């Protein structure tokens, strides 16, 4: 108790001062929290305040100080920003929350072209993480051991305090092994005392089998309880589970964490029905870690301001987006958490909508600033990824994961999508729904083969890893009476009671 109190004081001091954390204090605090939860089942009163300062006034003051410090250190220590500030004759020390807009936003291309120019002079790079690169070449982002240890520790605190992760849980990860999230989640989950399984992005049939397999190890639930994956791979799992005759009772899942891609309500509901688990939608990105967001029950994306400064800017002008308008998330991660790849006003490319003044959140996360959910990318005709996925995923005849290409023609955007069975009736239903949704589509064409699409449609579920397991087409469908008969015959043959 005495030691924990001392560590909490140190942690609170780092939070308030905006200076570097003592990683060993954070790690010890995680251990203390884990022990507390194992002893009492829940933390004591006020534990939530460990994650964020409760007072909005204090939050604003902290954010201003952290931002000033971040700008000063980033301009001093990184070749890219040092040059930029020199060229533009701006004194980094003069930058405040109000004058931040005078710094030019940093594009993904700038970081991708020369990642080392964003690495601080005194950094001690330890891990090179990569983005998935669905839009082309992956972006490389260096992280130090301090960052990895700190972010793992803070993720572990959040998983226990906000996520309800406990030591009896078993966490399965189905995301690309190259992302920083893979490293952080593996460390964070095990720090909470939960077990971790890296299932990987393997054949969905293999993943379903892993999720169903009984574990029977001491102190853990009999099956995997948490699944962390991307929306497109979740879609692939749902599709395969429905096709293969799986049932929610076959799994022990309690929570499915989806991130990295647009998760539609239709897919969320289908996944919840299929797996009997709550599906949570979150937002994160390798480049801006540890900045991330959580989607609340009312469908807003809440982005805490403790770990980075978040702006929503017009994607063309980079001026603040107006209420109700589309905007791109632009993030400055604070140097309290980052000391290697330093970024100022990083343009994530992820489009959201600024909440209209009439739609202020009244949810459980109301104190945390919010936008709409991530809408994906924005087409020249102002159609977002979410618009298209909402349209297509409401239709069960469209196979998951959804594959489409939005083609800009002279007359307007045309939607090409992959459908299992191309039929006129299906096209008509989609056209009707598109009209209801006021999507300015000039035509919908369905194809039965992804190769027939007029362009590439990459989703994270395509980042497939291989296993040596052998799945035949009939295997996953071997269910029902025939399976029972086969089982009974096998049992009889074996002569086992």
């Amino acid at each position: 108790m005495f030691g924990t109190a001392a560590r909490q004081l140190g942690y609170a001091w780092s939070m308030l001062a905006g200076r570097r954390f003592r990683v060993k204090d954070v790690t010890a605090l995680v251990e203390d929290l884990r022990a507390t939860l194992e002893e009492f089942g829940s933390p004591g009163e006020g534990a939530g305040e460990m994650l964020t300062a409760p007072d909005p006034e204090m939050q604003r003051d902290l954010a201003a100080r952290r931002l000033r410090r971040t700008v000063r250190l980033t301009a001093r220590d990184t070749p890219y920003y040092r040059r930029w500030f020199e060229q533009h004759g701006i004194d980094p020390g003069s930058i405040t929350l109000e004058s931040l807009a005078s710094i030019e936003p940093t594009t993904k291309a700038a970081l991708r072209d020369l990642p080392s120019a964003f690495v601080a002079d005194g950094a001690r790079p330890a891990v090179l993480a990569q983005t998935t690169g669905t839009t082309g070449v992956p972006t490389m982002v260096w992280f130090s051991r301090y960052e990895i240890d700190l972010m793992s520790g803070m993720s572990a605190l959040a998983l226990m305090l906000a996520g309800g992760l406990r030591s009896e849980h078993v966490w399965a990860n189905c995301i690309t092994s190259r992302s920083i999230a893979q490293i952080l989640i593996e460390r964070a989950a095990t720090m909470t005392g939960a077990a971790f399984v890296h299932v990987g992005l393997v054949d969905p049939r293999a993943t379903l089998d892993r999720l169903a397999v009984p574990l029977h190890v001491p102190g853990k639930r009999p099956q995997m309880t948490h699944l962390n994956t991307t929306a497109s791979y979740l879609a692939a799992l749902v599709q395969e589970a429905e096709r293969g005759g799986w049932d929610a009772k076959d799994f022990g899942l309690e929570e499915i964490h989806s991130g990295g891609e647009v998760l539609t309500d239709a897919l969320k509901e289908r996944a919840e029905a299929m797996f009997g688990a709550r599906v949570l939608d979150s937002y994160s990105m390798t480049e801006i870690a540890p900045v991330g967001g959580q989607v609340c029950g009312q469908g807003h994306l809440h982005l805490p301001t403790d770990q980075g400064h978040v702006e929503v800017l017009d994607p063309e002008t980079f001026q603040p987006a107006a209420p109700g308008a589309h905007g791109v998330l632009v993030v400055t991660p604070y140097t309290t958490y980052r000391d290697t790849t330093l970024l100022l006003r990083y343009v994530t490319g992820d489009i959201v909508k600024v909440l209209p003044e009439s739609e202020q959140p009244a949810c459980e996360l109301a104190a945390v600033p919010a936008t709409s959910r991530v809408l994906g990318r924005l087409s020249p005709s102002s159609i977002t990824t979410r618009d298209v996925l909402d349209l297509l995923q409401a239709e069960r005849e469209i196979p998951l994961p959804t594959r489409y290409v939005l083609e800009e023609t002279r007359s307007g955007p045309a939607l090409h999508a992959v459908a299992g069975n191309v039929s006129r009736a299906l096209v008509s239903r989609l056209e009707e729904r598109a009209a209801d949704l006021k999507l300015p589509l000039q035509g919908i064409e369905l194809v039965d083969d992804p190769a027939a699409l007029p362009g590439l449609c990459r989703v994270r579920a395509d980042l497939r890893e291989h296993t040596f397991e052998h799945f035949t087409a009939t295997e996953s469908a071997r269910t029902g009476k025939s399976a029972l008969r086969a089982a009974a015959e096998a049992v009889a043959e074996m002569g086992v009671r």
Partner: protein
Amino acid sequence: MSALMTEAVLRGLVLYLLILLTMGVAASYFARVTMPRPPVGRFVWTDIWIMVVALVAMPFAYMHMPIGLVVTIFGVVVFTVSQLVLSPVLGGRNAALVAALLCAADVAAYFAQWPAAVLVVNDLTMILLTVGVANMWAQTGMRAAHVAGLAAALTVYDALATGVSSLTADFVSRVEGLPFAPILATGYGPVSSLAGLGDCLMLAVWPLVAAKAYGRAAGWWAAVVEGTLLLGLTLAVLLTDLEFVPLLLPLGPLIVGQHLFWRRRERARALRGGPERVELAQALEDLPADARSWVALHEGAVVATGSAPGTARRAARQAGVTAVPVVRGTGG
């Protein structure tokens, strides 16, 4: 029997009953009231060592401090703990008010030179303090091993401070009759009959922690053992000319002994394994090899097969098995 002897017997028996009452109130409070606890943290060994060092060092420090300072320190502790122990029952504001009144009454009785009132009010504060601290320890995760460790350390300390040296006697003679004196007493001076706060705490906390760690039976056994020991010691003091008895000298080993006994029982029970582990052991029985075949077993019987572990589990569910079966390969 002389009048002095009769009074001593009476005071001794009342003290015995007061200690039993304190233990009972502590147990009742433990069963009914949840004390506020810090957001993160539970009792660990470091806390025990800090407490041992503090408990050993404090009497020496108190002997050399101005008495006003000693009373002030005790007063702050009494107020804080009383407020803490009463707040879940009365609410924060009322608890603070009652705690303040209690402290004020103790001080007022002292300055009014009403020794009987000081005795009564002080006993009340000591009971509250014992109930509060014992519950705080037990409810913040103090384990049976911690109590045993503390008891072992205090046994040595008590043997030296009370049995061998005059430290305890000197300390008691310095503080008895003062407000917030850390002793539960039914008389001061020549007919004094008292128990130290440390003794009361160990007596109160062990049944709580034993019950939490090893079940109600262990808690009741702890209370019965302590009650019997106390009665024996009370009679010994009354029938002999013993002045100060180091209570922890017999109590400490008794706590350690009970802890070792119950721990051994728990371990033996754990070794026998839960139903899941038993089922795993049954699943190790030989099965005929079958190429690429997995079987699901429930209650020792094969209930389904599959070409992969998950599909075998699914087939078991389809066969009507609601529990999660054990799935194993057949070595094919």
